[in-house]
C-alpha cells in the first residue's frame, strides 16, 4: 500500500440512534448500568442432549420474549432475527428515522451474524430426526443467514441495499464499517447497521465446548459462582469464554443527511479498517491485528495518542489475549491506552460482538467513563496493558475510542468512534 493511501483519512459519519437486546439489558440505561458496574450476566447452563453426558457450560442469555415479535414477512422468526428486529426498531426510534424522513432508495441495511438461523435449524432438524416431524415450507427463509437483514429491510422498506456479513466474531463490526464506507462513497445516505446472534442451543454450545474455548465450570455448589466469573479477560488465570446472545443496531448517516433532517448525532464513526491475518484458521496474529488498528487510525486521520479508550476483543483465551496484548502494545506503546474487555460480563456474542462492543465504547464516550473488565482484579503481569479494573474510570477528556474485533478465519475489523462535533 502506498503511504498516500495509508494516510488518506475518510469523512466521519454520524450515528443518530442505537438499540440493544443483550444479556446485560434491553435498553441503553440498563446497558450503561451493567458495563460501568462490571456485573457479569453469565450463568451455568446444562446441555440438553439425550444420551450424551457433557458438563454444563457458561452462558449469557438475554431476557427476551421472541414470541412477542411479529415478522414483517409473517414467517416464523429465528430468535436471533427477532432480537435483530427489536434492536433495529429501537435504533430507528431513537434516531427519529420514521416514514417520510428518508428516501427508501437511499437506505441500506448492513447486518452481521456468524450463524444466523442456527437455533431454528438445529431445533427443526432435531424434531425431524427424533420425532419424524417434517421441515416447514418456511424453514429456508427462517434459517437463511440473511434472514435478519431481510426482515429489517422489509420493516423499513429499504431499497438501497440489504447485505449480510458472516465473518465469525468480526461480522457486525464489518457490517457497520461497510455501511460507513457505502455512506462515504455516496451510494446511500443512511443505514441501519449492526448484528445479531442467538445460538444457545445444545449442538452449537457442544461444538464450542469441544473446541475447548469455553471456560470449564466448577462442580457442585461452586458451579454458579464459577459461571459468573467464567470469563476473565487478560487475567493470568483466564480460562476461556462464555457464549452469549444479543443484537445491537445503529442508525448511521452522512453528517449532511443528519443535519438536513435535524437528527441528533450521538457519536461519530471516524475510522474503520478490515484486513485478514492470512496465516491460520483460528490462531490470531499480532501483526495482522496491529495492521488493522493502524489502518483504522489512518482512516480516522488520528495518531494512537488520540484514542482514550480501547474496547478489546479480549476473549479470555490464553493465546487470544496474549496476542492482542502484544498487538495493542505495538500500536499504542506499553501501557499506552486504557483497555477493557466487556466480554467478561456479556459473554462472547460472536457475530453480534462487534456491534455490542462498539455500543459499549460509544457509551463510554457519552458518559466520559471507562467500563472496567469484570471478574478481573489484576492483569496478567506478562502484559504491558493499562487494563481498566474494578470500578469504572472517569475520563473527562475522552474524545475518541476504538473497538477491536478479531475473528476465526483471520478477519480483523477495527472501528474508531469520536464525540459528536458541536
Amino acid at each position, binding site marked *: 500500500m502506498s503511504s498516500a493511501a495509508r494516510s488518506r483519512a475518510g469523512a466521519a459519519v454520524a450515528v443518530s440512534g442505537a438499540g440493544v437486546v443483550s444479556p446485560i439489558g434491553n435498553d441503553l440505561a440498563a446497558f450503561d448500568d451493567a458495563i460501568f458496574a462490571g456485573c457479569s450476566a453469565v450463568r451455568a447452563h446444562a446441555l440438553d442432549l439425550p444420551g450424551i453426558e457433557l458438563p454444563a457450560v457458561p452462558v449469557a442469555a438475554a431476557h427476551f420474549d421472541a414470541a412477542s415479535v411479529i415478522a414483517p414477512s409473517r*414467517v416464523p422468526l429465528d430468535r436471533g432475527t427477532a432480537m435483530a428486529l427489536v434492536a433495529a426498531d429501537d435504533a430507528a426510534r431513537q434516531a427519529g428515522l420514521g416514514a417520510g424522513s428518508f428516501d427508501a432508495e437511499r437506505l441500506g441495511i448492513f447486518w452481521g451474524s456468524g450463524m444466523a438461523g442456527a437455533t431454528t435449524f438445529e431445533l427443526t432438524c432435531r424434531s425431524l430426526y427424533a420425532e419424524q416431524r417434517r421441515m*416447514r*415450507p*418456511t424453514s429456508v427463509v427462517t434459517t437463511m443467514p440473511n434472514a435478519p437483514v431481510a426482515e429489517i429491510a422489509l420493516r423499513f422498506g429499504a431499497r438501497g441495499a440489504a447485505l449480510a456479513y458472516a465473518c465469525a466474531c468480526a461480522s457486525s463490526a464489518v457490517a457497520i464499517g461497510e455501511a460507513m464506507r457505502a455512506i462515504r462513497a455516496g451510494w446511500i445516505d443512511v443505514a441501519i447497521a449492526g448484528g445479531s446472534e442467538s445460538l444457545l442451543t445444545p449442538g452449537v454450545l457442544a461444538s464450542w465446548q469441544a473446541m475447548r474455548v469455553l471456560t470449564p465450570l466448577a462442580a457442585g455448589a461452586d458451579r454458579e459462582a464459577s459461571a459468573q466469573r467464567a470469563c476473565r479477560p487478560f487475567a493470568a488465570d483466564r480460562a476461556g469464554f462464555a457464549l452469549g446472545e444479543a443484537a445491537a443496531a445503529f442508525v448511521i448517516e452522512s453528517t449532511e443527511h443528519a443535519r438536513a433532517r435535524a437528527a441528533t448525532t450521538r457519536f461519530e464513526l471516524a475510522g474503520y479498517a478490515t484486513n485478514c491475518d492470512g496465516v491460520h484458521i483460528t490462531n490470531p496474529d499480532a501483526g495482522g491485528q496491529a495492521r488493522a488498528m493502524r489502518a483504522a487510525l489512518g482512516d480516522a486521520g488520528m495518531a494512537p495518542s488520540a484514542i482514550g479508550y480501547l474496547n478489546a476483543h479480549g476473549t479470555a483465551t490464553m493465546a487470544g489475549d496474549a496476542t492482542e496484548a502484544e498487538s495493542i502494545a505495538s500500536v499504542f506503546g506499553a501501557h499506552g491506552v486504557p483497555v477493557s474487555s466487556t466480554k467478561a460480563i456479556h459473554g462472547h456474542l460472536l457475530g453480534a460482538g462487534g456491534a455490542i462492543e462498539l455500543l459499549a465504547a460509544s457509551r463510554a464516550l457519552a458518559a466520559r467513563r471507562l467500563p472496567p473488565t469484570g471478574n478481573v482484579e489484576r492483569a496478567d503481569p506478562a502484559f504491558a496493558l493499562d487494563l481498566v479494573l474494578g470500578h469504572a474510570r472517569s475520563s473527562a477528556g475522552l474524545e475518541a475510542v476504538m473497538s477491536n474485533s478479531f475473528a476465526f478465519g483471520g478477519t480483523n475489523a477495527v472501528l474508531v468512534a469520536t464525540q459528536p462535533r458541536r
Partner: protein
Amino acid sequence: MNSLTFDAIAAVLVEQFKVEASAVGPHVALDQLGLDSLALMEFVFAVEDRFDVRIPESRLDPRQAGVTLEQLASLLDEAIAAKASRDVVGG
C-alpha cells in the same frame, strides 16, 4: 364436508394466520385469504398437523387458483377417513 373439519380450519386461519373471521367461509378460495404462497403452504401444513394426516401433493396445490376452503375440508375428510381405515386394518 364435515362442519367440524371446516370449523377447525377456520380456527387455524383466525388464530395462527390472523385472518379476519368475517373473511372466512366455505366458498372462499385460498387465494382470497390475503396470504402469500408461502403462508398458504404453512396453512396447509398446520391443518394437516391439526388432524395428523397428509393430503397427497397430487390432490392439492394450494397455490392453484380457485381451491375453496370447502374443498380443502373435503380433502381433509378423505385423508382422515383413509387414516382411520389404515389404523383399524393395521390394528
